[in-house]
């Protein structure tokens, strides 16, 4: 058809020689460098497949001569990040837990590190927002069974609660008043009434008055005469609005009859020192964290730390 090429009169442009029902195509040539650019992209593409992983083979793709892989890049980035964090982590490990809140910068780093560690190790029971669920305490509130200063939180994490094979664990044993026959079923109901009265959930009643005497005889030794609890013994407050196992009649009846023996694993031997401290810092930062105990009481605690006091009390 090449012989059909002619110059189109109005435009002065040559036609390519095709003709369909009288319609012809003008030949407006592209610049030749355009073609070179195309060849350059082809060469670039081939070179890329040589240098980088590209061609699918039977078991895996070709590796590429540069040895680059996305997995390797990730590993390098993770290693760089670990190296960046190393001095901070070792500084946290070297800092005394009670002194950590005083160092704002280190505390901030510890809180953020603890947030990540919490997601891995703690959310299964305490929930992603640390709000807990029945039997698993809410760590956001200001009600602490074993103490809410950062040292006490740290101790709880390191040694756990009611670990059977660990001498220093947090240990408290409430008797099963109903099941073991210490109190009759009716007496249990009276104690429930009394507890609901001191926690402000019920008006005073004859049943509660009976319960008050039973409480004084059986419960006050640990929970205190007014139900304020005793952290040294791990005896929870009964006069507030927060209940680990629920504050309804049914829940309290079950608690007094059968007792509750919740267990938390100890983390001291599973996680490194810095991680445990970061977890303590994170839990302490959730809003219920308390200040370090005053130095005068610290001296007393030094003589009888919770570790020594608790087993002694439960023996």
């Amino acid at each position, binding site marked *: *058809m*090449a012989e059909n*090429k002619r110059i189109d009169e109005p435009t002065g442009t*040559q036609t390519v*020689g095709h003709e369909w029902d009288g319609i012809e195509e003008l*030949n407006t*040539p*592209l*610049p*030749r*460098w*355009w*073609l070179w650019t195309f060849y350059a992209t082809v060469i670039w593409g081939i070179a890329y497949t040589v240098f980088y992983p590209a061609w699918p083979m039977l078991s895996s793709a070709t590796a590429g001569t540069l040895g680059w892989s996305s997995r390797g890049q990730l590993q390098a980035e993770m290693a760089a990040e670990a190296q960046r964090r190393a001095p901070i982590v070792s500084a946290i490990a070297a800092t005394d837990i009670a002194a950590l*809140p005083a160092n*704002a910068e280190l*505390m*901030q780093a510890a809180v953020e590190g603890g947030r990540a560690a919490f997601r891995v190790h703690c959310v299964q029971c305490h*929930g*992603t*927002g*640390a*709000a807990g669920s029945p039997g698993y305490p*809410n760590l*956001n*509130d*200001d*009600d602490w069974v074993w103490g809410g200063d950062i040292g006490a939180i740290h101790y709880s994490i390191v040694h756990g609660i009611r670990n059977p094979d660990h001498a220093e664990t947090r240990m408290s044993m409430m008797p099963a008043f109903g099941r073991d026959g210490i109190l009759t079923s009716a007496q249990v109901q009276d104690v429930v009434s009394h507890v609901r009265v001191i926690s*402000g959930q019920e008006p005073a009643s004859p049943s509660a008055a009976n319960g008050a005497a039973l409480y004084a005889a059986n419960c006050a030794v640990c929970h205190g005469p007014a139900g304020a609890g005793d952290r040294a013994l791990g005896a929870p*407050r009964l006069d*507030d*609005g*927060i209940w680990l196992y629920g504050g309804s009649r049914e829940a309290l009846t079950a608690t007094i009859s059968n007792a509750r023996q919740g267990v938390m694993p100890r983390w001291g031997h599973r996680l490194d020192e810095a991680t445990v401290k970061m977890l303590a810092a994170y839990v302490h*930062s959730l*809003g*219920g964290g308390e*200040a370090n105990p005053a130095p005068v009481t610290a001296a007393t605690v030094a003589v009888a730390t919770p570790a020594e006091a608790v087993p002694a009390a439960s023996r």
Partner: protein
Amino acid sequence: MNAASDITNSPLGQYQKRKGVYPKAVDGPFRRLKWAIMVVTLAIYYITPWLRWDRGPYAPDQAVLVDLANRRFFMFGIEIWPHEFYYVAGLLIMAGIGLFLVTSAVGRAWCGYACPQTVWTDLYQHVERWIDGDRNAQIRLDAAPWGLGKAAKRLSKWAIWLLIAFATGGAWIFYFADAPTLARDLVTLEAAPVAYATIAVLTATTFILGGFMREQVCIYMCPWPRIQTAMLDEQSLTVTYKDWRGEKRGSLKAAQAHPGDYGDCVDCNQCVAVCPTGIDIREGPQIGCITCALCIDACDTVMAQVGRPRGLIDYVTLSDAETEKAGGVVPPAWRTILRARTLIYFGIWAGIGLGLLFALGNRTRIDISASQERNPVYVQLSNGDVRNSYTVRLRNMETRPRRMEVGMTGLAGGRLWQRGGSADTAARTISVAVPADSVAKLTLFVVAPGSGEEREDFALTVRALDREGGGDAHEVIFDRPET
């Protein structure tokens, strides 16, 4: 379509070798205007990053700085934060409408005078004429076989081009970092790799686009000529060859021999010789014409020499060309420039500009945003109170540290404190120091009596504690347990 040469050899094939363009030096009013615009635009480009602007100790002192690392854009007295990027968007829209305005009034003036491709190509062609000589010498040198002399000329030309390209790419990066510091780091090889890479890329593109691609960029790569073709109308000024006056072309001798047979065009080809895109304007308006008006200068010079009136090639609108051809009276130029279309474009352009200025004058430099913590939504406290927590961001957009007071309106009995602080310090307000030109992110605990609405609206507020004052509020919700 059968031979290999069919593909590469123009005009028979589908691909075309670039025709050499050797624009001849010319002088005239438009050429001098182009010189002036080149000097001004290049000066703005090279000098701007070195201008200083005192903003106090907490902000950079570079007058124009695009601080990508810290996400700030400084332009003299104005600082733009990322959330204020609509100012930049507004400027871009103004630039777009400004091009519409200019195009509808004076045609492709941007292409002919101010486009960087035009300015740098012009600069490179000037260097070329300085080394190789004018048009004829360049054509001869191009055709000459490679020898010592040609190699020396080529190498020196390319070296100067490279130097200009390097200065161009080098100047660009100074807009993105403190210029004196970066210049020192560049010399001592301590600058960031991206700085060197940017210089390398821009040096290469300037060298290639200005030295070799030239008019090919305008004709094949740039979308703007196509858009401008659509923007032009009968009232837009374009460079026009007045064929009704020029035809039939003929030499002076021929015209003297046969008076009345010939027009004013003496067919000297000067308009083609000076054209930087290598076109013949006498073929009529075409996409290759960037309306640089150098052919007007060339033709006017020739007309003066042969004693004929100037303006055989001139800025004329298409409709004026028709009028003039028919012997009518052409309205003055301001009538074509001040017409409804250009005035509407100018109105939109100026309206956006005024709107931006107004917004700039009214913008606040202090700002609070708060979002409620959703996990958990509320926390029951042992004394019956309820606690919510909020992530609060305080923006201090001034270039000095400020002390601010965060408080609340509504929520009777509510008190707040900051995470890391103690609940014992809870109060209606807290005082926070916010560093200069930054956002302070706080977690606020808000505690309120447990009795009340299940979802209560209130606002967290911020107020500057210094003399200038200013403040902001953000509505949030306080959640309580279901009762």
